């Protein structure tokens, strides 16, 4: 009886209905994301190695020694540096190339509908396959990239791109760019299409040239799209794992050991789950800081 009257009240009914609708989503995310994250942070403060599991001891509080270890062993800072270098390299180039490509494809180019869909192809190629494909292209002795560079006389000896400390990271970045440029272009293109063409016409009559148009109309209009896509791209590249794991495994000389690789290596290669979780926790904090700063910068700019 009581329940029925509650339901009859429209507002209450709406509220219950709303919560019921959310419930499946909240349950799934709580079980598979929130709890694991919380548990992972907790594990990072414990001694949790394979031997502990084997002997049935389980995880024991270990007085920050995982953190002490990762901060003193000297692998952490290079990994942070590599992660940031990779992320900024890929995000900036991707934005730059994506912008040009989308502007070109938005212009009057023959067959642009076809081109727009065909450039999307790399986006649907699975990441592990992307990694293998680029390993094959970069192969020093019989890979096609080395062959072309040799033919063009850019290099005189075949170079193992993925084995040179200075070249490995850029090489992985190329593979990442290859897979990610399409989506970036697609998003920017969608943004460009919302710009009313009268804006351009009016500005052209006022005597603006192409570059002025770009900076005074295109960029301001794209602001929101850029903000979203760049944030998505930052997050994705900050998290990148399969490309590195398949292409370089973190080498040579740790020049491609990102936080992802470091964490995975500690947890699943050395079977020290606590330490792996500690790296992941540091990484999580960094990501939060980056996202926060990024949002702050954008909001401040908007206020101006």
């Amino acid at each position, binding site marked *: 009886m009581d329940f029925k009257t509650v339901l009859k009240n429209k507002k209450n009914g709406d509220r219950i209905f709303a919560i019921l609708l959310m419930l*499946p*989503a909240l349950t799934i995310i709580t079980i*598979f994301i929130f709890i694991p994250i919380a548990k992972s942070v907790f594990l990072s403060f414990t001694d949790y190695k394979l031997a502990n599991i084997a002997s049935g001891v389980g995880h024991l509080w270990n007085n920050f020694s995982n953190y002490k270890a990762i901060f003193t062993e000297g692998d952490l800072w290079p990994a942070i540096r590599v992660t940031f270098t990779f992320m900024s390299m890929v995000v900036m180039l991707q934005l730059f190339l994506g912008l040009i490509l989308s502007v070109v494809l938005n212009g009057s180019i023959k067959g642009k509908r076809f081109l727009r869909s065909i450039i999307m192809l790399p986006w649907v190629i699975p990441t592990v396959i992307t990694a293998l494909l680029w390993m094959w292209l970069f192969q020093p002795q019989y890979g096609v990239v080395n*062959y072309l560079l040799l033919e063009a006389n850019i290099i005189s000896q075949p170079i193992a791109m993925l084995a040179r400390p200075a070249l490995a990271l850029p090489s992985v970045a190329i593979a990442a760019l290859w897979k990610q440029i399409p989506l970036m272009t697609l998003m920017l293109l969608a943004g460009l299409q919302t710009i009313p063409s009268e804006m351009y016409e009016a500005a052209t009559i006022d005597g603006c040239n192409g570059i002025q148009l770009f900076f005074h109309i295109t960029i301001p209009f794209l602001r*929101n799209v850029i903000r979203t896509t760049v944030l998505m791209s930052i997050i994705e590249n900050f998290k990148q794992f399969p490309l590195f794991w398949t292409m370089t495994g973190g080498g040579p000389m740790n020049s491609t050991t990102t936080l992802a690789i470091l*964490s995975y290596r500690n947890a699943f290669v050395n079977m020290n789950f606590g330490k792996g*979780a500690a790296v992941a926790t540091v990484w999580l904090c960094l990501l939060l800081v980056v996202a926060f700063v990024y949002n702050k910068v954008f909001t401040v700019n908007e206020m101006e």
Partner: protein
Amino acid sequence: MKKTSILSYFFLGMILLFLLFPIYWMFVTSFKTNMQLYKIPPSWLPLSPTLGNYIELIKGKVFLTYYSNNFIVAFSASVMTTVVALLAGYSFSRFKVKGSNLILFGLLSTQMFPVIGRVIALYTVFKSMRLLNTRIGLAFALTAATLPFCTWLIKGFFDDIPKSIEEAANIDGCGRLMTLLRIIMPLTKSGLLAIGLYTFLLAWDDFLHCVTLITSDNLRTLSAGISMRYLGELSYDWALINTISVIGTVPMLLLFVFFQKYMVQGLTAGAVKA
């Protein structure tokens, strides 16, 4: 004017080469024999194409197992995501319960967390729920991973639907759930398709979840299976690797060719509005 157009054609040509040549090369390589493909200078066309690699791949039954596992997992994940995101997205869009914005923001922020960061603990959670080594467990994990973004996307679609439609339906005597399923849902078909496809794409691409949560070879999905099985123990079999790449890519290419309108609409709608 002329100059810029030549420049833009040049740029377009270069970037098309960069984006499309690798895919072309993957196809060409898969039709060569191992000894042919180590030839330098390479032959740019498969001069004496062979299907041997494909036949060998299909003969090894494991590959088909990986393949069908990937389909099962990706399909279940996208169906689950679509249904759950539909309900949640509608709720977030229509009923402004106290704190619902905060919840949505909280959900979205999980999208930032690195998978490796939680996969260690996810393993123990899976173990205690007896979900380790089950395809449905994997599908749940992948659903959870894409759900926040999909909910947010589909919420945008609901936001575009005027409230007056529901009010009219209400007067006609439709209950809340009926209104959603009969009246509102058909209006967001393209959005639902978009999130379904998006989830399928991400689930097909998954590597880390499968590597850690599935330990039984006959339950593995493609990406994990490839990297564990086909990279060769004693030598690289590049012909076979390229063949697998082709076969692993084709479903995605087909999906994209047939449904690209929806994918593009769905994904860009969110970004442009935000």
